């Protein structure tokens, strides 16, 4: 592990081990928060922050944490960072906080964060762990943005709430894309495309 170049720890999370599109982790919030680009960016930023901070914290205290109590400690740290994000969003971005609703608090039980803490940060140094958290969080955010791009564009005719195809399209948009089945369709097609490209 220690011999891989530092930058790899960051980039592996973006493409080859993309948490959402390759490892297929964190699917539930990915289905729920990709109805608009704004939501996806907000959710992605929250995951990046929590993944990076919890990786740093776990890595920093890994030598004094006994194996037997590591999981409660991880959860405690993750929950704290998530609460920080949740309260900050409520205070300074009330609109975004309202539309993301429960999915910010639910980052606590997001498997990506706990998996990175357990599988990586607990065994590696602070800088490597920070890059790993940043990379897997960014990869997840990019996945969300990709999915929400298609869903908002086709389902609502807008990007970041700005009309793209004009009012006529907006009133007759492909409704199913905004609904949960649209999330499955979009995600499935994107993953299929990625698999196709990777095999070639």
């Amino acid at each position: 592990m220690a011999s891989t170049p530092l930058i790899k720890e960051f980039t592996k999370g973006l493409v080859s081990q993309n948490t959402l599109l390759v490892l297929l982790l964190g699917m539930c919030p990915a289905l729920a928060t990709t109805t608009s680009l704004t939501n996806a960016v907000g959710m992605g930023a929250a995951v990046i922050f929590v993944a990076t901070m919890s990786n740093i914290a776990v890595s920093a205290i890994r030598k004094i944490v006994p194996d037997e109590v590591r999981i409660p400690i991880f959860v405690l740290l993750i929950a704290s960072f998530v609460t920080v994000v949740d309260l900050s969003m409520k205070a300074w971005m009330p609109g975004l906080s309202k539309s993301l609703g429960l999915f910010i608090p639910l980052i606590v039980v997001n498997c990506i964060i706990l998996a990175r803490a357990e599988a990586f940060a607990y065994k590696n140094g602070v800088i490597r762990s920070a890059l790993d958290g940043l990379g897997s969080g960014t990869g997840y955010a990019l996945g969300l943005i990709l999915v929400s791009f298609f869903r908002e564009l086709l389902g609502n005719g807008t990007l970041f709430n700005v009309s793209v195809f004009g009012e006529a399209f907006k009133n007759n948009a492909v409704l199913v894309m905004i609904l949960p089945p649209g999330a499955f369709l979009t995600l499935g097609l994107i993953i299929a495309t990625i698999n196709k490209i990777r095999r070639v």
Partner: protein
Amino acid sequence: MKEAKYLIVLTGVAVVCAALLAYVYKVTAGPIEMSKNAAINEGIQAVAPEFDNDPVSMMYLIDGQDPLSPVIYPATRGGVVVGAAVKTVSKKGYAGNVVVMVGLEGAPDGQLRVLSTTVVDMKETPGLGTKAKEPGFAGQFQQLSVPPDGALFKVKKDGGSINAIAGATITSRAFTECVNVAVKAWREHGAAALKAAADPANAEPVNSGADAVKGGANG
């Protein structure tokens, strides 16, 4: 000895986390409260008839025990009652409660008109139920005369005249219910609200009202 280490490490981490959260809570408590109040104030400004009083200070809660009961913000101009903004909650939303601020023009016992509406809070499906905020649907509740016989507004599916949002009938019904509840609240409790505002000494305890409004905004 090992157990002691567990205890010390766990306690240590918990204390640090608690301190961090206490600090963040303290910093954010003010802005969170302000953004909630701002949302209410903006809502009143947007829907009520032109007024020169402070509707928030005249706030009247119909049932102090029930945080979801309608809240009346009377609007007066030059001391004359011109209408009210009524915040109502419908539990029949597709995802949680739908909270709507309804602007009414007219005295409680006179001819009433729904001036305008604005959504204070909803968690409906984005792009679908949230279309209730857009003119296509909400525009139907503008300058809308209230039937004097007490008939309720209904969506077309229920035999009324309101066009429901395609694919979001539940949201449309919840929204329509909010308007009906607001009209009823102003009709039946408007006089009491104005009396309470004119004579604060005999008014309902304001504290329970203020707390209940907070609860309503959260719900």
